[in-house]
């Protein structure tokens, strides 16, 4: 989901994904990404375009598809439902009143048409 989210921000080169995720303490190895990306691609959630690399063969930049966006939206919704449910449960246990947390992931709105 996170990967999808990162790609959702725009054309992405896999190492960039790693960098972004490092920032959020979700540490993964690069090798993990490729099978994941290929699977997403095979499911039609992402696509890729070729861009000229610095000094080598063209690089694969991944982009999100409409379907991917829909799935991402669905995932985000259910994730937030889950998070709030968990937070509420924890709050009840601790006896503190539940406060709605700020939105963790700020999703861009869906593009108007696709």
């Amino acid at each position, binding site marked *: 989901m996170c990967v999808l989210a990162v790609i959702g921000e725009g054309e992405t080169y*896999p190492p960039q994904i790693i960098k972004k995720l490092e920032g959020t303490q979700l540490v993964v190895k690069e090798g993990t990404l*490729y099978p994941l990306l*290929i699977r997403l691609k*095979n499911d039609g959630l992402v696509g890729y375009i070729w861009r000229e690399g610095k000094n*080598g063969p063209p690089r694969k930049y991944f982009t999100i598809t409409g379907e991917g966006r829909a799935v991402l939206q669905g995932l985000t919704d259910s994730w937030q439902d889950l998070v709030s449910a968990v937070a509420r449960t924890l709050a009840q246990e601790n006896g503190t009143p539940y406060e709605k947390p700020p939105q963790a992931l700020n999703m861009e709105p869906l593009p108007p048409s696709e």
Partner: protein
Amino acid sequence: MNKILNINLGGFALTIDDDAFEYLSSYLESIRRRFRESDGRDEIIKDIETRLGELITDNMGNRTIVMLPDVQAAVEIMGKPEDFGGEPVETRRKQSNQSQSSSGIRTGKRLFRDDEDKVAAGVCSGLSAYFGIQDPVWMRLIFVLLTFLSAGFWIPAYLLLWILVPPAKSAADRLAMRGEPVNVDNIAREIEEGFDRFGNTVSTMTDDFKKKSSSTGGRLTNVLGSILTVIGQIFGFFIRFLAKFGMLILIIIGIAMLIGLASSWIAGLWALMVAAPLISFFSPFSSGFNWFTFLVVFLFLGIPLVGVILVFSKVLFKTKPPYWVSTSLVATWVFSVIAGFGLLSFGVKGFASRSDVDKNIDLSGLNSDTLRVNGIGDGDLNYQFDGDDWWHDETKYMRNGKLAVPGEIDILVRRSNDNRFRIVQTISARGSSDENAAQNAVNVDFDATLQGNTLNIPVYYSLDKGAKWRNQKIKLVVEMPVGKSIVFDEHIYSRAKADYDDYANNNSDYISQSPGKVFTMTKEGLVCTACPQWGDRNFSEDHTYEDFILDGDFKTEIRQGDQFEYKIEGNDSIQVIRTGDQVTFTTGGRNVSPNTRVIIHTPVFTKLMADNTGEVTIRGFDEGRSSISARGKSKIKGFFDCNQLEVMLSGPCKLELVGSGNNLEATLSNGAELDALNWRVDHVEVFATENATARVYSKNSYKKRSDSSSSVKIDGPGEVVE
């Protein structure tokens, strides 16, 4: 110093160091294996390769050659297959994975020595790693045990492994060394997976075929398609079975190889011990160089053996013997070949000349017309090398440091010009010169001595220590006056012979085939006075005999067979004389027990003469022309067919015939009886006199003539002609 290679890694042209390359390819191989069952495998790998290439290139800076640390750094970023989450791989491997160390990358297994964990050279720990045993202590224990059990063989085996197996130098080596544990299951699985892929291709192909055939609507082809699928599955199963089995066989070969090496080592040592005392007799050198000869032979035969083992271990365990090992092996072998040739030519020189030494054997004590010749010494030594015993019982060949040489004695019997027995003994020998050859002949220790009327001849000669074997041969020429006899006993007869011309005409017995038989010199030549024919009881021959004479009271059966052979049953002996196409079986006038029976097989039967013999049966022939004659009390039954059969019976004998033919001609006399009612023939002629009786059958015509005392009865529609 390391080799470098140029590779294309996902579109990046890289110049890479050998170590780094090994590491990289094993890494990629492990990834390939990790994603074996993923859908977009090729794409994943391609992406990873490209990224790796990029990482490495970025990291290189100004350097041109990719080194191991560069690859390691890139792999560090990319992560090892274990770190990859995502799709689960085979659960099987995970189960067996309890204690996989950090090594991670599973690669083609190679045997290395573990320099970092060693007692002597790290062979055991390397083997432990290879076979996936955690603690090398066990392997060491096994080696120590084997060393004791194999009487030291494992020490050179260890040394050999030390030489053959390279140490794990680089990180890649260490990874390859630790690779996945090798066992039958793993290897078989590898192959199985390979064939699964193959099987998938086959089934895809058959599916395509099915689609095509169903689109054309051919039902038959559809059926054909399913048959193909079934065949494909059976084939796949078979191949899988073979793969499992094959790996097992490979491993067994490996083990057998080690055992072979062990046994040849032991055999070599043992031969060294056993053959040591023998060498001096054969070696061309007088003393110390004998060991050199042995060494040369040992190397000449041993090095190719080691070479074969090297090749095997290269194929099986991917070992690479260091360059100097193969070079020095080849060099040593070439040396042994050259030295061998040198020795050979030197040895051949030792056989260049020949000398004979003659001596008369003293027969002055002989006081008989018959000379008995006995072979003395071990009966086994008589004629040939007794394969098994040769090495086991060295005392047989080495007696008190002497070499015993069997089978080099020949005896020739010929006619003497005067009236005395005379024996001349000739010892011939080879040598480097005439004098040397004569000396070698004189060195032979051989004594034929007369004791009473018996001449004792050793069946072997011996050579003293220090003497050389130079193809010494002994020949005894026995001159025999007319009227005297000679007997060779069972130990020596096979060494004796006479020229063909010295035998009497019609003689078919030879001294070399007749142990213990008396041969007498006559004016016509040598004859065996009381010889049954050779092959007394059972005999067969390609020669065709068709004329049979039976003489004496025994039972006989004559049957059709592919080849002439006969068998005599019962304890009494029957003499068999074969001349031309005639065979005579005779009791020689003696009485034999009633259970004596002769069984003859013969392809052709044309003539039988039965003289006062027991019951004779003739079976199964289909002849053009035959004759049966009988005398005395003979009783004959014939079950066969014959176009022209002639019968002559005389005396109280009886012939019963069952079969058919064109003509039957019978002459009967003196109480003879012919019963041929079941012998269906066109034309019959019977001539009966003196109390003879005949009953015959005729289809067309008959002639008969008989006196008043005889009776002839003719059956059937035949009419009289006369």
